[in-house]
């Protein structure tokens, strides 16, 4: 029982971080219709940038924010240079997808050349250890949970209460009509890539902080978790990605605790495969409403 409750705690922490990254990944797909596989490389890059600050004894939370902003800017630039440019020139979904694979692998090798093949270890300040009933959590884990929930709530407010957020949803569902409303679609897309880069950068550093030791494969591993989370919730659906992140986080931690950590990835793959088989549109997917409409409903 204790193991279960402990794992639940870790699962929630891990789930919150995966959810943040999955929302970021989902935003790119939802608004630009780009499945950006290079997202994993940006996670890895964030972990290394965070490490550079960590070596200099930079405050770990401040480094999450700083790296988040840096990846946000890089993400906008990357989209303008590659996927966004290809889409504007009429490249199809698959062409753009393949270009992001190429870019992701290429950038990852550049990172490996610069950083070297050895794993790096963060100096982590976990703060005090707190015990609630059988839950054992450190203050820094609580900060992660709190910040992740706050960020997701902020993103919810952005989408539902602000003109920018509504314009992002409008652009996502119907870019032609968005343009005919006078919505500056390319600026809205920049904003979306900024937000997704921010979430990617912050989750990349927090992943490294929570795993402590990381290498160049960090991004690829967690990208699979995030894709599983995004697909679980219905790809392109931010709330789906949030729920999916928690489910994947809990599932991978529980499987890791009760069998072997080596099977954590398997758990993510099982969730991904099962969801694709049973309900390909995901928990919150909109395929139903679309097909209804095409049927004249």
């Amino acid at each position: 029982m204790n193991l279960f409750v402990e794992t639940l705690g870790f699962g929630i922490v891990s789930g919150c971080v995966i959810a943040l990254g999955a929302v970021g990944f989902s935003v790119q797909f939802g608004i630009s219709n780009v499945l950006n596989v290079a997202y994993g490389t940006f996670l890895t890059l964030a972990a290394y940038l965070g490490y550079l600050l960590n070596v200099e004894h930079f405050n770990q939370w401040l480094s999450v924010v700083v790296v988040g902003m840096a990846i946000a800017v890089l993400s906008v630039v990357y989209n303008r240079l590659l996927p966004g440019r290809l889409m504007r020139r009429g490249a199809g979904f698959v062409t753009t997808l393949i270009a992001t694979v190429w870019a992701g692998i290429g950038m990852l090798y550049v990172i490996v050349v610069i950083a070297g093949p050895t794993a790096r270890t963060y100096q982590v300040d976990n703060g005090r250890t707190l015990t609630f009933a059988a839950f054992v959590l450190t203050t820094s884990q609580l900060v992660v949970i709190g910040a992740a929930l706050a960020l997701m709530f902020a993103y919810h407010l952005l989408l539902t209460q602000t003109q920018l957020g509504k314009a992002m949803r409008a652009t996502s569902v119907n870019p032609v009509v968005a343009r005919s409303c006078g919505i500056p679609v390319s600026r809205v897309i920049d904003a979306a890539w900024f937000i997704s880069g921010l979430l990617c950068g912050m989750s990349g550093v927090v992943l490294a902080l929570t795993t402590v030791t990381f290498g160049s494969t960090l991004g690829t591993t967690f990208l699979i978790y995030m894709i599983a989370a995004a697909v679980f919730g219905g790809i392109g659906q931010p709330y789906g990605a949030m729920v999916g992140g928690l489910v994947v986080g809990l599932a991978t931690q529980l499987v890791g605790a009760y069998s072997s950590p080596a099977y954590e990835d398997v758990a993510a793959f099982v969730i991904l495969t099962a969801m694709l088989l049973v309900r390909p549109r995901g928990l919150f997917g909109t395929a139903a409403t679309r097909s209804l409409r095409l049927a004249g409903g």
Partner: protein
Amino acid sequence: MPTSLDSAGSGGAGPASGGTRLRTRGLTAGYGDIRVIHDVDVEVTSGTMSVVVGPNGAGKSTLLKGILGLTRVFEGQVELNGQSVTGKPLEQLAKAGIAYVPQVDDVFDTLRVRENLEMGGFLLDKATRQERIDEVLEVFPDLRRKTRRFVGSMSGGERKMTAFGRALMLAPKVMVLDEPTAGLSPALTQVVLAEQARVLADRGKAVLVVEQKAKAALELADWAYVMVQGRVAMSASGREVLDHPDMAEVFLGGGAVAPGRATG
């Protein structure tokens, strides 16, 4: 009751009257290197409804895309009040007063009715946007009780109303409607054309409609253009086109109206 949605100079009777005028001059447009429409002249002015009819593949949609800068224009001009807007992107056309309601994907499905209207008024300041929403809801009172509904869950007629309402938010002078009755039942077709599109013209808008359901549209149109094989084969009042003996041939047969015949 006049509102800012009503354009000046309403009640005009025919393409020659004053107010706003959108016209194409010798428009030749298509995709890639393929020219689909040739030398097309159409026009619409404030307070009137012009319809473009013709069989499938006649180039009606290409004409609209050419007007809206959504496809390649080889030759000719699109003019708004004498100024060229040829090839201008949709964002700029919106600012110039041209609203566009596409054929099927005409709303933001995953947004609420009110949010659809807010997005229609994206360019307005907050206070004006709110006033405009109230005005639109007076034009389409059926939407008033449904402003919090997600448009994706609504019926075809309600969706069309939302699309028209969204397009009205910027108080456009010209409304371009691409097959507004596509996918709607015969009863709803009548509602959309007679009670919605026609009413917009009567409120002073210049309304340009491309329509597959020719008969219903021609009965309400002030002016009509019949397109056959990428050219305007006939240009006359809606009534005249309806009464023309070749009309059945155009839609049922192989496009027997010779280009140029009965024009004017």
